[in-house]
């Protein structure tokens, strides 16, 4: 029986961490536990299976190549799952990664039991003064942290763009899914659920006006809406239309008699004796 090597143990441990981490219900902890194994384990497993995760390897390029192989693994695995009619999900992915790791450990063990490997590390280490790699990794880490700090401070203290204010006026509820003219009986009352959203940094007092075929319908109504808030209500009016197909326009004005900011146009089909066709 060939003993499990240290790289195999490391890869298996990474896969274990990935498997357990993926099902942890605390989102932040899940990300912390999973992100690195997810980006390293599949690639490392491939290297293990190929027999090149051995000896003294060049840490940064090997990790980079491992990450690249992992990034390549996921699309190819997703295609295999698709061909096998298996949904791409948390469970299926964990099973695929664990399956790959297991398979590669077995391949590695079998190969070693047959003959000693003559392979070199995938990217062999470069001899440098002791601690040189660690020293510059620390330098990079410090610079990255300082830059991240700069970004965080910038986001916190520098002024950001304010979105241009606007007003949103719409039908709401089931009426939003309207498919065509509204059918009403001549002389009956019509209620139209509407919504007004004030996307501005100040409260606004809108005026709601209605016109049926250009003629004023009822009296204008004040609609106060706080800043960044939505008002929902309804327009109600009696429809005494002269024709069979009439246009009802609901206008939202900044002030009485002003130019409309936004409007809704509805078509009213009157059910009456003369409008059967």
């Amino acid at each position, binding site marked *: 029986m060939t003993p499990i090597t240290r790289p195999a143990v490391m890869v298996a441990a990474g896969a274990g961490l990935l498997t357990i981490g*993926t099902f942890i219900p605390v989102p932040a902890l*899940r*990300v912390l536990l*999973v992100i690195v194994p997810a980006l390293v384990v599949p690639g490392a497993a491939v*290297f293990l299976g*190929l027999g090149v995760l051995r*000896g003294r390897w060049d840490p940064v390029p090997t990790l*980079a*190549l491992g990450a*690249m192989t992992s990034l*390549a*693994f*996921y*699309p*190819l*695995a*997703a295609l295999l799952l*698709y061909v096998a009619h298996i*949904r791409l999900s948390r469970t299926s*992915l*964990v099973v695929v990664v664990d399956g790959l790791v297991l398979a590669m450990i077995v391949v590695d063990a079998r190969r070693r039991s047959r003959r000693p490997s*003559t*392979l*070199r*590390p995938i*990217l062999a280490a*470069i*001899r*440098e*003064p002791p601690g*040189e790699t660690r*020293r510059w*990794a620390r330098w*990079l880490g410090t*610079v990255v942290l*300082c*830059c991240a700090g*700069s*970004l965080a401070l*910038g986001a916190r203290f*520098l*002024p950001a*763009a304010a979105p241009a204010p*606007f007003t*949103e*006026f*719409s039908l709401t509820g089931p*009426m*939003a*899914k309207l498919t*065509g*003219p509204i059918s009403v009986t001549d002389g009956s009352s019509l209620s139209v659920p509407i919504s007004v959203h004030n996307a501005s940094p100040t409260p606004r007092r809108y005026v709601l006006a209605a016109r049926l075929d250009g003629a004023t319908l009822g009296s204008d109504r004040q609609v106060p809406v706080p800043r960044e808030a939505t008002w929902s209500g309804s327009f109600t009016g009696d429809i005494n*239309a002269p*024709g069979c197909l*009439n246009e009802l326009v609901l206008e939202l004005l900044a002030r009485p008699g002003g130019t409309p*900011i*936004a409007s*809704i*146009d509805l*078509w009213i089909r009157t059910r009456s004796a003369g409008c059967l066709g």
Partner: protein
Amino acid sequence: MTATRLDHPNTTVPLWESRQAALDLNTLLADESHNGRPPSPADRLQPPPPSGNQQQKPDIRPSTVLYALGPGLGLVAGTALLCVAYSWAATRPPGNLEFLLFWLGELAAIVPLAARLSRDGPSRSQRLALVAAAGLFSFVPKFLRDPSAPLFHDELVHWHEAQAVFQAGHPFVPSTLISLIQYFPGLATLTASLQNLTGLSTFQVGTVLLWLLHLLALIGVFVLVERLTNSSRAAGIAGLVYAVSPAFMFFDAQFSYESLAIVFFIWVLVCIVELQAAGSSTRQQGVWFVVGLILALACVVTHHVTTYALVLALVAISVATTFRRRRDSQARHLARLTWAFTGTVASAAAAWLVFVAPGTLNYLAPHLKGGVTGLLDLVRGGTGPRSLFQGSSLPGYERAAAFLTPVVLLLVVAFALWRIKGQRHRLPPALLGLAAFGLLYFLSLPVMLTAESEGARRSWTFTYVGLAVLIGALSVDVGRRFDGSRRRRFAFAAAVTAVLVVLLVGNVSVQTNVDYRFPGPYVYGSDTRSLTTELLSAAAWLRTEVGPGQRIVTTRDDGLAFGTIGDQLLAAPSTGFPVWELYFSTAQPSPNLLDELRAAKYGYLVVDDRMARFLPEVGFYFEPSEPPAAVRTHPPPQAALTKVDALPWLTRIYSTDHLRIYRFDFTEVGACPWGSRLAVAVLACLAAHR
């Protein structure tokens, strides 16, 4: 300080040629005995260097401290300045200060990096750390441009596709915005996989990926050039050359398939170079073959153009390997293996094209045809060349740098070719192949003068890898000659830095327009600055109140939001389906169009009234073939947009200050409204009842 590769002790295989040739190569390219010399076959054959007396105490002088601290301080200061530049651009009227702050930030980081990397002192680890820092730093501008949501056109489309794949649980989810992306699901499936594992959102996974890809790309270039030149100094300079390439800072920093595929491209080249470097070790070659193939297959399923560029680069390497001077059995074996790898990748690309994504040809053909036709037209003198930077608000120094960039590159590359001309038989064939591939950059330049300039720009992402290799190789040769005195070293560092600065400024300005680069006031039809909160709110309203998956007709600009944030299905306008009739003409749309809209069950129409006030920045409202996109000087008349208000088959269900959403009801086409406000409605009614 000396570095030696710690390979397997039993291995006695030279890299490219015989041991002697390898030593010659070292003499030619990597006379760096004083620093962290990277791997070379000669190193493998030599005993490890003595450690004791050669480990001298570092010479700490003010200049040494400055060199050591400079890059770190520059990167932090550069990040801070970029933050200020983006805040300024977002909150002040457009001017020149945001450009100045931007370039101060960039130069604060790049100049110390270039100066440090071009010197002979730094160890390999230091160079690697500096290149990695450059990779991360080059993503900062794009990160600041849209830190909280996708913004660029392609980015939004890919973000939506990745979300769709995540929700559907399988690849090949149709996209109505760019139909082809469903057949290249590499990025979407990778993102969905990482989303499933980590629980992060699509945008968060995308951001993590892009930081990582920027890092991996430059490490890849470093490893590639280091293996080819046996010089970490060359590798560092080449890494920086690629960091200042046109697409690296913005285009390949967006969440799109090329951003992922280009990194596969680089690492596949690393694999083929390592395969060739494995000498006679068949098993080691097999390892690199398999790893390279995994990466290449991922590239094939991720992006079409990158795959074809990869095949081209591999062919160049294969040809160079075949026609090398030595013809012994090992060289022939290497050539066969290289061709086998190239053939396998090409076959995979062809199979994917034929069986999965046959639409790719139709997608790419107009661009290729346009480029060739444009060039022929230019040669015949049919149309004058396209004016570069016409109407651009870029500062003059950026435009000057953009024109200077190809000239500087030409001079540097010509010098490099002259320097390596006599040594070409002793250089790695992959270096020659990649150098030849890089020269395609110059062939693409005339295309910039045609209407298909986009194709030329897109090719630079790939050809710059070849240029980086060539410039890296040159820097070893020249750098060695300048290492004699302090003044000469300074001159070399200054020259390298100056070249990199010109390339950086020129490349960014030629690749990325102002609207993509900086936030600012609304610009109609600009993709980035027309994606307002108002538009996003309208798209979100339709999705929430009516539901996703509605068939809607809208312009390209608004469609970007409705098709992605709104998750709706968009009409694909064409001359056969001219939905622009609804917007451009004051007359009733043609019966054919109405029939098509009815048959395809289109439910909603979106109108932006700014369409009647502005010409779109991208040059067209719907798509390039719309009439009269090429010669349009005025927007469509306001009456063409307001006509829809009086048509009884359109109900306005939503409106904002600028946007309106209408519901189609084609059963009412020809209905006669009482007291219609618009002549076209009356005419339609009369026509229907005639």
